[in-house]
């Protein structure tokens, strides 16, 4: 193990390359890759990296990138791609295909606002567009988490109780291009953590069909199986954490990361990098005697509903910070969280940092002040224009 000063894009690529090498005694590694800002450096790294048993196909579009991953995964390879924003939107058809074929593809999404007009900066709206695609979605808050989550993603995706693709999300530029000290495991350690991929429905000598046509009853059965696999995720995630800790000596965060929740009367819920600023404001407010805590949501699909409900028990004021906007509704995270808050609690949505807008401590201070003085919740507040 060694610490390296690297970007999250390179951390993701290093993890993917090592996961690929760990499968060398099976069908190796295959990546379909296509550049788009801000995920380009991740795919460039993989194009340069030597993989002992692997291929990188420089395809002509994101749609084809996922196509290559689907084909390679069906043939038994460990697969990876990375994209962002409109690239993810263009890939969307095949994103669904990977999930519905139950293929353990791993993707890193560098979150970026959708266009036009074109915007290159952080926004969770791109991956949230695919929240119902049947992929597992994990949102990271720092570069180490990106590295660790990619390794965990393979272990979880390939578990026989799951067999689903995993999307590891990191905010564009804020993580993708920021250098941070990141502990990089050795290949031997990764070999020990990731067993070789043994896909039960692999295309092999014994001829079989994937895809095909479903009648309504069979479609219902397939969706029920898929949904059940999603619910197995929580148990498998915990095991992947335990095993990670045993192998690498550190424990990746839980799917919900609570902070100073004991005795809290108000809570701020957020995803990704915004959470670290939220925690700073929680510390400052606590010094003033305000009983406030925070929760970072790391696992968005499947949504850890029961766990969140438990954490929110008895808390009367819930502020939800979304770096996305479901137009005509409000924040996507707010939509999930308000449904599990304590009955009667004030669940207020705040939308901020959309399109890469800076989320500064003063913004979080302002929304906390707003939350504390409210008698009731109103429609979600779009911070840049309303405060």
């Amino acid at each position: 193990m060694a610490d390296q000063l690297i970007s999250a894009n390179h951390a993701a690529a290093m993890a993917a390359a090592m996961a690929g090498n760990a499968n060398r005694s099976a069908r190796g590694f295959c990546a379909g890759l296509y550049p788009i800002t801000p995920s380009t450096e991740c795919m460039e790294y993989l194009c340069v990296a030597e993989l002992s048993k692997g291929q990188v196909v420089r395809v002509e579009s994101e749609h084809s990138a996922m196509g290559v991953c689907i084909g390679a995964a069906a043939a038994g390879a460990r697969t990876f791609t990375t994209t962002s924003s409109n690239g993810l939107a263009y890939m969307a058809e095949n994103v669904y295909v990977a999930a519905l074929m139950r293929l353990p593809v791993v993707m890193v999404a560098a979150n970026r606002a959708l266009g036009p007009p074109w915007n290159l900066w952080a926004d969770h709206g791109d991956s949230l567009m695919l929240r119902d695609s049947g992929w597992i979605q994990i949102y990271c808050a720092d570069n180490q988490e990106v590295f660790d989550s990619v390794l965990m993603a393979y272990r979880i995706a390939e578990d026989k109780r799951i067999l689903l693709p995993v999307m590891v999300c990191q905010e564009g530029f804020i993580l993708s291009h920021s250098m941070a000290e990141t502990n990089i495991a050795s290949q031997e350690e990764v070999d020990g953590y990731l067993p070789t991929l043994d896909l039960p429905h692999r295309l092999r000598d014994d001829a079989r069909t994937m895809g095909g046509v479903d009648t309504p009853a069979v479609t219902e059965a397939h969706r029920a199986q898929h949904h059940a696999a999603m619910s197995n995720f929580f148990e498998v995630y915990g095991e992947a954490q335990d095993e990670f800790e045993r192998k690498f000596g550190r424990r990746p965060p839980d799917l919900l990361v609570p902070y100073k929740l004991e005795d809290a009367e108000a809570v701020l819920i957020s995803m990704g990098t915004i959470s670290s600023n939220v925690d700073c404001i929680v510390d400052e407010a606590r010094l003033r005697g305000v009983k406030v805590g925070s929760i970072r949501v790391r696992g968005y699909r499947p949504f850890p509903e029961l766990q969140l409900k438990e954490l929110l028990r008895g808390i009367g004021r819930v502020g939800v910070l979304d770096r996305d906007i479901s137009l005509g509704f409000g924040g996507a995270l707010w939509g999930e969280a308000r449904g599990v808050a304590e009955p009667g609690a004030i669940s207020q949505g705040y939308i901020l940092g959309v399109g890469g807008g800076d989320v500064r401590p003063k913004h979080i201070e302002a929304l906390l002040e707003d939350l504390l003085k409210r008698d009731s919740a109103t429609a979600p507040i779009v911070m840049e224009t309303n405060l």
Partner: protein
Amino acid sequence: MTTPNRIILDKYLRHNKKFPHIWCPGCGIGIVLAALLRAIDRTGWTKDEIVLVSGIGCSSRAPVYVDFNTLHTAHGRALPFATGIKAARPPLKVIVFTGDGDCAAIGGNHLIHACRRNIDVTTVVVNNYIYGMTGGQQSPTTPEGMKATTATRGVIDQPFHIAELAASAGATFAARSTTYHAKELESFILKALEHKGFSLVEAISQAPVCFGRRNGMGDPVEMVKREKELAIPISKTADMTFEEKRDKIVTGIIEEREAKEWTDLYAGVKKTAGEE
């Protein structure tokens, strides 16, 4: 009497609004855009009847710099958008300004179908052999053996030849020139604009920062001189083999023929159906 370049550029550029532009020093896209503007000036068309459409990439930024109706669309999709404009408003002069990545990679399928449809749209493709906007990854026109950030040991895929691809897909006008041959390029673009049916002009261009730098091609002037050295008029290639032509830039009009145009054919169908 020809109008001086400066006066033409001043007439069409949104110079007070959108500059400085994003193109690297020494990039050839400006030469291609200037050739397009001079050609447009020679048509006598008004700014209001022209629509310039683009996708995503360095060349696709051009429409935001010029004072026509402009539409900056999604990556690779300029041609379907342009097809919609032309289908709905046939009198408009619809021009697509694109690059090798936008048009031959992610938008390659749209290109062959626009050619096949022979709709009256003019496409100007800046082929600089590389994805420039994302910093120098191999494109479908990067010659074999050349280096890119995604091909540090050299490209192994064979390249598309865009003008020939368009011609074989059904484009009724296809030509190629270079940024060195700026006057010839302008004359080909003028022919394309005045051509009835789908027309395409491929402009070989230099990307000194994203392509030339990694392939030891020297400064922008050396890259443009290289275009001059490699260029060979199509009239001299009749007896050359594919291998002999491979490292050359074949310039000239690759295809020029008359065929029924899509919006005219459609109007005919409607007439037959008694709807007009």
